[in-house]
């Protein structure tokens, strides 16, 4: 088990280094960093001096290693447009995005898994058909349209929920602000979280349904029926557990992508998170922020992947066995 975790961690570090090199290439070779940092009135001599100070004349490999080493310490340089350290900018906006993504993840799992299980068990019921139709709409409706639809209904027509921002936030320690503790914060969270969750929820539901239907056809389910086990034992003890094993992997990846998808939701609801910052950086060609965000997303993905792998092994005895077999 330990050897397995070590191997997975090493692989994760490999992915991070690869993404780091891409980020470095973007930073160094897309446009000239010096031109982005200084004004037009800066003289050629001053530019050359700055270039030397920043180490931009060093061999590429040295620059790349320096970039990676700094990134590992969360030092991504200074934003071109805000003239502030990128780490501070991202840090200030991270709580908003993570709270949104967290609530959306919980929402999509809590709704998607039961809906998928139900529509697999009752294939032809009216409710299952409704779920199927909803899932098709959920997949076909671009996230921003869902958001606009919700705003139209709940803000413009009914006036129940705020259409933008995070509401009042409470500061917890130096690094975190939360919207969970105020009424306006919670109200502000409802629509963005729903919007962000909807697409993931439909995916999870479809996946769970397909997997569960597959499992219900398995021989061990038929044998369990032949032994007269109760429907609930067959569905929930035998089928659900086998369904969730493959679902874990894909759902893990999906949840990882929620953070990235929040770019769209944050734009629709003017949510002050990292996604908005990233979008601004793209519009203003603010490469340090783009590079840092890229690394952040990769880090999220790699971490979730690692957790999923470990979870997977602890659920499935066959994998545990093959791991034991591998080293004695």
């Amino acid at each position, binding site marked *: 088990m330990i050897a397995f975790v070590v191997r997975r961690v090493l692989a994760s570090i490999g992915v991070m280094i690869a993404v780091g090199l891409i980020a470095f290439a973007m930073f160094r070779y897309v*446009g000239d960093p010096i031109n982005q940092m200084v004004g037009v009135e800066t003289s050629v001599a001053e530019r050359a001096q700055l270039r030397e100070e920043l180490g931009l004349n060093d061999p590429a490999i040295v620059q790349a290693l320096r970039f990676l080493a700094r990134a590992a310490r969360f030092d991504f340089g200074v934003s071109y447009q805000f003239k502030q350290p990128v780490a501070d900018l991202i840090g200030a906006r991270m709580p908003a995005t993570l709270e949104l993504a967290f609530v959306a993840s919980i929402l999509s799992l809590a709704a998607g898994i039961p809906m998928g299980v139900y529509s697999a068990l009752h294939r032809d019921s009216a409710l299952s058909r409704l779920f199927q139709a909803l899932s098709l709409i959920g997949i*076909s409706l671009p996230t*921003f*349209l869902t958001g606009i639809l919700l705003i*139209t209904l709940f803000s413009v027509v009914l006036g129940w929920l705020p259409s933008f921002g995070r509401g009042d936030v409470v500061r917890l320690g130096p690094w975190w602000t939360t919207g969970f503790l105020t009424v306006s914060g919670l109200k502000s969270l409802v629509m963005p979280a729903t919007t962000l969750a909807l697409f993931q929820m439909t995916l999870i539901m479809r996946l769970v349904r*397909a997997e569960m239907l597959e499992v219900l056809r398995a021989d061990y389910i038929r044998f369990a029926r032949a032994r007269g086990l109760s429907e609930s034992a067959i569905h929930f003890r035998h089928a659900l557990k086998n369904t969730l094993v493959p679902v874990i992997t894909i759902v893990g990846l999906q949840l990882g992508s929620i953070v*990235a998808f929040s770019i769209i939701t944050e734009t629709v609801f003017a949510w002050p998170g990292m996604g908005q910052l990233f979008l601004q950086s*793209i*519009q203003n060609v603010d490469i340090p922020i*783009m590079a840092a965000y890229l690394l952040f997303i990769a880090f999220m993905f790699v971490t979730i992947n690692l957790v999923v792998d470990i979870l997977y092994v602890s659920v499935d005895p066959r994998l545990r066995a093959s791991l034991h077999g591998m080293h004695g």
Partner: protein
Amino acid sequence: MSRADVDLAKSGPPPPSLVARLRDNDLVASFLSSKTTAAAGLIALILIVAGLAAPLIAPTDPFNPAANFLMDSLTPPRFVAGGDPRFLLGTDDQGRDLWSAILYGLRISLMIGAFSVLLGGAIGVALGLIAGYAGGWIDSVVMRIADVQLTFPAILIALLLDGVAHALLQKSNREETAFLVLVVAIGLSFWVQYARTVRGSTLVEKNRDYVQAARLIGLSPARIVVRHILPNVMGPVLVIATINLAIAIITEATLSFLGVGLPATEPSLGTLIRIGQNYLFSGEWWIVAFPSLGLATLVLSVNLLGDWLRDALNPRLK
């Protein structure tokens, strides 16, 4: 062959007509058997024709600033109080006829969708074939790149590529290149799925007898891959392409909505919705409503077709 088959071959009835054969075809039968699918097919067809024929059927040219007047801006639809008979669905903030803008927007969405699917498909299929057939380090490199790219959702890749392209291109010709940049960004964000599928199929096909035979008689690898393996891996590629068309259209609309896609001067559906969102609270609902409806209908009908095609080609997935 059983006795009955032999008899049939000897003195059987004349070969069935085209119509009869189409009715017997499973794909066509399952298409017609589902009313939803048939309706979706019809709607998709109408939307595609409307988009392609936009320059012919649109009353005005929304791309031509001279044809639109600011004094007409924010006119409600014709069937609403205060509407103008010239503008069926009303006008936007620049006085453009929304009906025309939607037709042109459909055209752009479909073109970007189709081109980016073609581009992503071509790259993915080519790399998949090469990786699968050549194996070794080429295979490893291609698949590692694919793994890393899979780390990120397609929309993020497209955003990044878009950002990089903007940084590399001159600000002045951004508008002219926006279309091309979108196609490349979306296309490149989709190649991995094709490559993985095609590589898998190629690995299987490579060891088939007919490929071994072709190799023995000295055909060049390129010829073997293109003439013998490629036709055998196209089935799944087609299914992925259909599903990807819907995703590509959504991605384009999303990028344009986020303001990094097509500029307001040549609006796609996403751009129109972005403009319309600003008028949600001031009562000009039509600017956002009609383009949204058009986009949702387009994606839904393409998705329904994709679902049906996947089920029909692969009954096990139902």
